[in-house]
């Protein structure tokens, strides 16, 4: 979409994703399966992640953010597009080559309960990766390595002989982080790293991720639905809607002035623990639900729910991610008009969205249009 995305000239980005697509086939039939359609989970995403930076990917459930994270690590084979990691094209790698690359990119999962094997003790969980990649000469050496890793995530060394169920949620997530760190990766993809944790524990884990980045120079791709969490850890924020990026900008810019209508409504929906803020701020309530990614709306994918949707262009022309402000990329036809207030939001009728059928009809626009 955007070939001239800004790249730090002095330093090549660690990860470069170009026009990545992941389409899952929908099959019918009992004996003879035939493909009746595709779920367009990720449909053309360009992404650059610079070294030592945190890229925050936000969006609601079903927008394809987790699929994108997994496709980046080649855990799900992409349908099309390229993923370059430190100059190496990952989609072209197979078998052993890909496996050895994985040492450099690790993942932290959302659910600290189901992502740890309940029948392995912590030592065995942490050494598994070391053994697989042949790090550490013998057991004693490996033990030393993982003990250091445990220290860095703030877990006591006696944890090694314990099992996951003996720990609280926050501690389990620390073990999950230690497992990712043990291999000395450069990139960590964290898929909803704190959303399963209690508020007071969330803060501990967020701070830990921040400290580790400072001390180890890690690069993060943090996938989250919580905009406030991303605000705290991300340098660059990308907002996804139905398989595509709708806005991307440095964290400060995007939170100070969200430009895309979807980002605006997303931000206005996040509750702030402050009655004064809550009472004063305007809310942009979106009607209806996310359309089905199996049958996304034509044109701009957000136009069926967009309070600023216009009769022309929105329904038939898919907007391209373009640089609306320096460093601030938006996929919307009417960015300038909306930012200047020349287009006012109007009411949108909620419409039926079914898992199979997708969108039924174009929205009924009630208010008069002022272009």
């Amino acid at each position, binding site marked *: 979409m955007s070939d001239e995305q800004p790249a730090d000239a002095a330093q090549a980005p660690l990860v470069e994703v170009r026009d990545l697509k992941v389409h899952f086939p929908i099959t019918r039939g009992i004996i003879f399966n035939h493909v009746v359609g595709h779920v367009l989970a990720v449909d053309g995403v360009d992404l650059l992640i610079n070294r030592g930076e945190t890229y925050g990917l936000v969006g*609601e*459930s079903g927008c394809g953010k987790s699929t994108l994270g997994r496709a980046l690590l080649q855990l799900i084979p992409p349908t099309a597009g390229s993923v370059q990691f430190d100059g190496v094209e990952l989609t072209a790698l197979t078998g052993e080559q890909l496996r050895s690359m994985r040492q450099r990119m690790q993942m932290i999962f959302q659910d600290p309960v189901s992502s740890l094997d309940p029948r392995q003790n912590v030592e065995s969980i942490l050494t598994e990766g070391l053994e697989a990649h042949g790090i550490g000469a013998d057991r004693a050496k490996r033990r030393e390595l993982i003990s250091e890793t445990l220290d860095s995530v703030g877990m006591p060394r006696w944890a090694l002989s314990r099992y996951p169920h003996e720990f*609280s*949620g*926050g*501690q389990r997530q620390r073990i999950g982080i230690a497992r990712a760190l043990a291999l000395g990766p450069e990139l960590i993809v964290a898929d909803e790293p704190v959303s399963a944790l*209690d*508020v*007071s*524990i*969330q*803060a*501990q884990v*967020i*701070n830990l991720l*921040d400290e580790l980045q400072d001390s180890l120079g890690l690069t993060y791709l943090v996938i989250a*639905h*919580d*905009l*406030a*969490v991303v*605000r*705290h*850890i*991300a*340098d660059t924020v990308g907002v996804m809607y139905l398989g595509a990026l709708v806005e991307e900008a440095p*964290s*400060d810019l995007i*939170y*100070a002035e969200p430009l895309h209508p979807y980002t605006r*409504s*997303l*931000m*206005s*929906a*996040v*509750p*702030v*623990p*402050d*009655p*004064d*803020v*809550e*009472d004063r*701020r305007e*809310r942009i*309530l*979106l*009607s*209806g*639900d*996310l359309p089905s990614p199996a049958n996304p709306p034509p044109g701009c994918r957000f136009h069926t729910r967009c309070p600023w949707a216009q009769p022309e262009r929105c329904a038939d022309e898919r907007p391209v991610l373009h640089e609306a402000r320096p460093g601030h990329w938006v996929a919307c036809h009417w960015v300038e008009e909306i930012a200047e207030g020349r287009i006012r939001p109007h009411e949108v*009728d*909620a*419409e*039926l*969205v*079914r*898992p199979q059928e997708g969108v039924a009809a174009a929205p009924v626009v009630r208010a008069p249009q002022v272009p």
Partner: protein
Amino acid sequence: MTMVVERQAGPLLEVSDLSVVFRRRGQREVRAVDGISFTVDSGEVVGLVGESGCGKSVTALAVTGLLPPRGVEVGGQARFGGTDLLALDPRTRRDLRGRELAMVFQDPISSLNPVVPIGVQVTEVLTRHREMSLRAAKVEAAGLLDRVGIPDPQRRLREYPHQLSGGMRQRALIAMAVACQPRLLIADEPTTALDVTIQAQILELLKELVRELNTALIMITHDLGVVAGMCDRINVLYAGKVVESAERRALFAAPHHPYTVGLLKSIPRLDAARGEPLHAIPGSVRDVLPWQEGCAFTPRCPRRVEQCLDGPPELTPAADGRAYRCVNPDLTTGPVRPAATAAS
């Protein structure tokens, strides 16, 4: 069969000294709720806030009589318009539940019957409690779905829960809960399983219902952002006790209990700057002290003093209707706000 709860002066629901103890043979007893008291008036929204295991859901289950009959000991009183809900026999309570008090749960998929169409589940409430004919109930059900913002209600009534999205299911549950225009609605984490934009829709809907039907609402949540926007009075729970209780504005303007302060400081906020470190509360909710030995929050408290271990602290009333349970309260902290508030 039809028991009418008298309208009386005083609060609609008055929970006093509620305690719930789980006892299982061969296991240590668990005191999930330990003497909780609060009141709710008609048209008022009261929040019960706390982290997992603080007893907020068990409180709701005890009030509605939905706790399992065995292995549980419920103490105290829950006076609903003059009658003690806890002393009622199960049948009378069943008649009351659904008609006078209703509940919305966190997970809409597990609170709906997956093999029964939505329509049957909604009409059931109407035929059971409002004694409507099936035909009238169907018309009413469509009206209810429309009321909670479900498009094309006639078609939705014939569908099964799996055919609806998460937000729609939660709307259907709310429709069922308000079907009999209950005087008290208990919402237990009604938006936790939903996306933020859908959460905003559901919260708006609940506020509207409270305004229009003058329903009392007990909002149970872990999210202080949610209560800041909608609750009139907030009770902060920790380890089965109310540790701080105050009007919405008073609580956020000057939190007194160190746990409330800690919670507010540890929340990542949209209006804080990048890189501002969060103030985490050390330890986890598992590190509690039994209340008999002192304040349960002592092991994690930054303001602990020796007196904290002199038995359970009392709920101390203070100005503007606030009360806190702490021997060394934080009286100096103003509103917890990010250091550099970003331009909005």
